[in-house]
């Protein structure tokens, strides 16, 4: 019964200095060996993975920013291009309007000039005609007057004169 109580209190063997020393040596040995062969490599691998993941995240973040920047640039460029195109169209429209106006203007001026010169020509022709008519009237009056004077001539002569006159008139034409 004494063995029973003793073993309840201190366990099967009690406190053995030898066990303690062995435990200490074993545990420290285990600590060193595992640290070298198991935990070290394992933790290195985990660290490596952590770094890898962090690196990947960084890279992804960077490329995302890059993509965003490029997109922004592209959209800005597109906007600028659109603006340019708008400007060009606007310019063309303006130039076209100007040209249209110029052409119309010059056409009108040309027409005006042509009309003017035609009118002048007509005027000149008219004056010429009037002049010619005047000349003719004058010469005919003289002729008539001379004929009236020649009335006192003989019948025969008169007839001859008329004939002559008619002939002359025919020639005159």
């Amino acid at each position: 019964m004494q063995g029973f109580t003793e073993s309840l209190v201190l366990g099967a063997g009690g406190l053995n200095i030898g066990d303690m020393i062995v435990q200490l040596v074993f545990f420290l040995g285990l600590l060193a060996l595992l640290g070298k062969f198991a935990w070290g490599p394992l933790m290195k691998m985990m660290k490596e993975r952590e770094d890898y993941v962090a690196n990947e995240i960084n890279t992804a973040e960077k490329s995302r920013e890059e993509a965003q920047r490029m997109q922004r640039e592209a959209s800005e460029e597109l906007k600028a291009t659109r603006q340019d195109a708008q400007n060009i169209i606007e310019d063309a429209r303006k130039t076209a309007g100007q040209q249209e106006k110029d052409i119309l203007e010059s056409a009108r001026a040309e027409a005006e000039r042509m009309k003017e010169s035609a009118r002048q020509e007509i005027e000149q022709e008219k004056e010429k005609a009037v002049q010619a008519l005047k000349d003719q009237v004058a010469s005919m009056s003289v002729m008539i007057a001379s004929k009236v004077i020649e009335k006192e001539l003989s019948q025969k002569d008169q007839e001859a004169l008329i004939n002559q006159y008619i002939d002359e008139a025919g020639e005159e034409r």
Partner: protein
Amino acid sequence: MNSLNHEAPMWEDAFGISWLDFNLSNVLMMFVASLIVFILGVAATRNMQRYPTGFQNFMEWLIDFIKGIIGSNMDWRTGRLFLPLGLTLFAYIFVANMLGVVTNGVVGHTLWWKSPTADPGITLTLATLVVVLSHYYGVKLRGGGEYAKGFVRPLPFLLPFKIIEEFSNTLTLGLRLYGNIYAGEILLGLLVGLATTGIGGFIGATVPMVAWMGFSTFIGFIQAFIFVMLTMVYLSHKVSEDH
């Protein structure tokens, strides 16, 4: 009462030194436990990959588990120093606890196969190691002055209590583990004794034995966890700035 009457394979007065006694069963079981932990640790970390599979996953889970224990007690910058210690302590104590749950081996009247942690000397050795380490790191990481001031903080008259606390910490840390595992083994031994009394005893002992083995496994895990947790608590008291 069978198991309690088993004798330990003692080697007394080893090498003619009067105070040097070995319990050869303890020595054997410590060796077995260390070997198993070492083999498991090395086997798990052979052939490591960045994308972990199988066993490596388990070991990484274990590392994260211990990391969690350390992280709940101290800053990870100082705590990382103690990760190998925590891992080894946990693995060793858990395996040692399990050895006694799986089976107790008796050769003749001599108890050879048992948990090494069912011996107070062994658990106290581990506890003493932990407490001594906590003092060592206290001096190393914070300097002798800060370490000494830790004993009179927050109030100087606490000094005696602080000193007593160091010894009581050691005792409770070791004896808690020993008590739990030893009690589990005694009950398992009693149930084995009951089972060997006859056919009726065997039938009657089977169900409680299976239940108790399951419970002991749980206890073994919890005790390993508590040991590591308290190790980190004591370490953090000594190495952290805010204590």
